[in-house]
């Protein structure tokens, strides 16, 4: 390889590495049926249709974080909503992967769902099940 091509290749790799974090990795296609089973992990604290230890999920998509009327959210979650956090596929994916990292101070003391496919399945289920 000539010196010019070597430099170009190195530059390409360097730029690519720098840009990687900025490139959104698309979630795999989710299966709502598998997602419904995964939702069973949420049953200790959540339901679709009522508030429990966690807020109800009905109407989740498009809802500002921390905004279910009457639910005692953490200050962190309320603030996140006031700062513009709205629940959609992308924000839910980030939150479900690591809740305490995405919203530091959330009361959702749950380590997260690390598997991309499982998160995609769960989000696909939630998208269907939470429509009002």
């Amino acid at each position, binding site marked *: 390889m000539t010196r010019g091509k070597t430099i170009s290749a190195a530059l390409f790799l360097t730029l690519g590495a720098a840009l990687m974090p900025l490139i959104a990795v698309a979630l795999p296609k989710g299966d709502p049926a598998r997602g419904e089973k995964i939702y069973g992990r949420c049953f200790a*604290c959540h339901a679709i249709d009522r508030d429990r230890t966690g807020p109800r999920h009905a109407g989740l998509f498009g809802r500002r974080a921390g905004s279910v009327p009457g639910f005692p959210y953490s200050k962190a979650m309320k603030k996140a909503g006031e700062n513009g956090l709205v629940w959609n596929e992308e924000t839910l994916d980030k939150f479900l992967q690591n809740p305490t990292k995405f919203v530091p101070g959330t009361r959702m*003391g749950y380590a997260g769902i690390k598997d991309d496919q499982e998160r995609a399945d769960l989000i696909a289920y939630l998208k269907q099940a939470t429509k009002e």
Partner: protein
Amino acid sequence: MSEIFIPQFHAFARRAFLARSGRVALSAAAVALLAGNEALAVQTAAKEGTSDVSILNTALGAEQEAVAAYQVGAESGLLQKPVLDLAVTFQSQHKAHADLLASTVKKLGGTPVVAKKPADYHFPVQKLKTQADVLGFAASLEKGAVSAYLGAIPLFKNRELAKAAGSILGDEAMHWAILRQALGQPPVPEAFVS
């Protein structure tokens, strides 16, 4: 529903469930928590957010709901012996979990969450028409509890708390398995729980 061996429990009047003191054998970790292990004094004031105290309080809220759920199930008139006695025992164990969690929250300088009034849990009682419905509802809550503790344990900063939470998780998993068996389902469906 398949026949299962259920040890003979003391019979209780339906409305006397919460009369039990909830005194059960504690794990070594739980004893350390209640005995004022100095290592636990690291966190003093309860902080808002995902502190160990916050995680414990979330677990406490779920345990209080479980106590209330078993009360509703038992008072529904749908549970027959020996299943009714089983529900009473499981409820008493959730009460023991709640008592331990509340004591630990206080010991760490926090304020334990207060149980809701029964009506404020809005349990889906209209969907509970048979014993199997009640057991299925209970099983879903127990499975949820297993998953919740699995998700919480990695987050505890204090490893003694993580150990105590693991002890509770084990109990919830046993409840789930017994309820599944009572419903005629394989009691241990998979090698790993998530």
